[in-house]
């Protein structure tokens, strides 16, 4: 025999390797990276409070221009999708920009019974008026209080930051507030890049920044990420936000629904059958 034990294993090994690599090649990704959520990194340390972003936002989204003289602690409303507030902190005056956080798993989207609130695959959370019935459950559910409602309109809309999805991001551009920022306090990119950049800035200047990326874990992770020289409660930001996503809170209830729907009718039908006989008896007694 020309084939001995050793050469048999050799052939086996080569064939096996060829098969294995062949398979590996077929299974490898075909140069199409998974779509990642886009987001914006907001650096409190770089923001000078010029409010250019507010004006850019109003122009890009056809909203009324923001007021020139401003009160402290403003909130977004049905006419202003973003506001910048001034805060006196332990390290001096700092500014905070407020807008939709574009959560990875948004409460408003889970709340919406018509999917009018919609998490696009690019990351921005948008609102679709042809689906919305104006129930305002998104407003009840959002931990950041972002969706706003036009209470004085017979045809009210829900207003919130859409990360300029329709007019910019969809066409590969950056949101209006980011391009309008003169001091590069805002940076647009995929969430992964932004977290890497935030970590780099914190690591390079540990005495400047607090070691916390707001939005990395808050509410299960958000598209907007904040880094700051002072703790975030000093900037008027919500710090009682849970780390798990908000839709998790209703999961147990919703998962129990199919079980109840299968078991309870069966149980009820069973009890009904079991008590039926005595029913007939009583009827006879009555007659």
């Amino acid at each position: 025999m020309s084939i001995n034990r050793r050469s048999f294993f050799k052939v086996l090994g080569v064939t096996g390797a060829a098969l294995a690599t062949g398979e590996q090649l077929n299974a490898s990704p075909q140069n199409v990276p998974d779509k990642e959520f886009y987001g914006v990194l907001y650096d409190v340390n770089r923001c000078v409070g010029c409010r250019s972003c507010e004006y850019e936002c109003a122009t890009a989204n056809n909203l009324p221009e923001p007021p020139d003289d401003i009160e402290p602690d403003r909130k977004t409303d049905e006419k202003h999708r973003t506001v910048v507030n001034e805060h006196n902190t332990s390290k001096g005056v700092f500014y905070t920009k407020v807008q939709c956080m574009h959560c990875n798993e948004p409460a408003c989207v889970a709340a919406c019974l018509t999917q009018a609130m919609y998490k696009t695959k690019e990351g921005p959370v948008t609102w679709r008026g042809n689906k919305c019935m104006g129930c305002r459950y998104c407003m009840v559910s959002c931990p950041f209080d972002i969706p706003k409602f036009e209470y004085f309109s017979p045809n009210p809309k829900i207003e919130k930051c859409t990360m300029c999805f329709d007019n910019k991001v969809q066409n590969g551009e950056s949101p209006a507030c980011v391009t309008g920022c003169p001091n590069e306090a805002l940076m647009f990119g995929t969430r992964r890049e932004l977290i890497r950049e935030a970590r780099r800035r914190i690591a390079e200047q540990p005495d400047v920044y607090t070691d916390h990326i707001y939005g990395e874990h808050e509410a299960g992770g958000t598209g907007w990420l904040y880094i700051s020289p002072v703790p975030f409660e000093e900037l008027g930001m919500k710090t009682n936000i849970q780390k798990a996503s908000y839709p998790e809170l209703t999961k147990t209830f919703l998962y129990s629904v199919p079980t109840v729907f299968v078991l309870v009718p069966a149980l009820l039908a069973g009890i009904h059958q079991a008590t039926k006989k005595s029913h007939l008896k009583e009827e006879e007694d009555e007659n």
Partner: protein
Amino acid sequence: MRTNTPIAIEQENKSTWKFLLSELKPKGKIFTPFNIISVPIILAGLVIIVIRFWKGIGSVTNLTQDIPWGLWIGFDVVTGVAFAGGAYVITFMVYILNMRKYKSIVRVTVLNGFLAYVFYAGALLLDLGRPWNVINPIIGNNFGTNSVLFLVAWHFLLYMIAQLIEFSPAIAEWLGARRIRGILSGMTIAAVIFGITLSMLHQSGLGALYLMAQEKIHPLWYSEFIPILFFVSSIFAGLSMVIFEGSISHKVFFSQISEKNHHAQKGIILGLAKICAGAMFVYFFLQVLVFIHDKNWVYINTPMGYWFLLEMIGFVLVPLFLFYQSYRKNNVFMIRVAAILTMLGVILNRLNVTVIGFRWDMPVRYVPTWMEIVVTLTVIFVEIWIFRWVINRMPVLRDAPAWAKDKH
């Protein structure tokens, strides 16, 4: 007898229109105290509703961006539906457990439940900003299946249909449609089983709506067990409503109720009191468990803590004790007092979760406008008008016609 039926139906068909027209006319006195009070309020309510659709929800309510749900949701929908829970409890007792004693109150309870859903859930339309899109979750534009509200909306719709089927034999008897009545009453058991399942899920679902508002509701009222607490409390909320409504109906519609059912009334009320006491004991026990589990005692020595104690002691423990005592002492008056206290307690509880405890830390609290209250009263009064109209015409409180006695 069977051979006569087609002819009888033909004769009925000819006169159905005349019959319906004559039934539309009011029966009884026009200037009763109830009418004198309710008519102006209903008219005012209708005017406010027109303004609401013309100038927006904000023009008649005190709702804000921070408090998007007020009296119309917290009271009309969430509380109203809890009170309508009597229908699923009574149908469970009569059709599933075969407790025949309660059969005489099934129809009036189901009617009450059905009208409550139509009107109180219908009041939801007033609160929707874009009500023309209300059919979207039904027609699939789109199915937001992750939403608790999606579940609640579908269940409202399906349960209304189930209740209509449960009540429909009475409508058929009123119209004298014998054959249709036979078909409809054959569907009752299926509708009852379906209806009880739906009720369990949406009574708890109304509580589950608030699960995502974790940081917004006062911790004494927020827990992951809100759905279970809402479900258990809907049992005694519904039965207290049955006791309350039954006591009034027996006075107002005295002439309609047969001798036999008059005598049965006391036994029914005593039985319901016993069930209320049991359900309330379970509820109180659950509340204590939640209280300990969430370590809530740190909140007790605050104004909201006293408010919580008032609800738990004054409107759960006290009526629980009264129900228990009155059952042992055969005291119907005490049961009625307990039922009223229980209903106040349920109103308090639902409003505490949805309105009073919601954003309790805001500097400006939500207080409904007089217009929101008038609209709420309008909804209630119109419901009572329809209820009275039906009671005076269909065999609900009075016995079914002889031809419709159940054979099976």
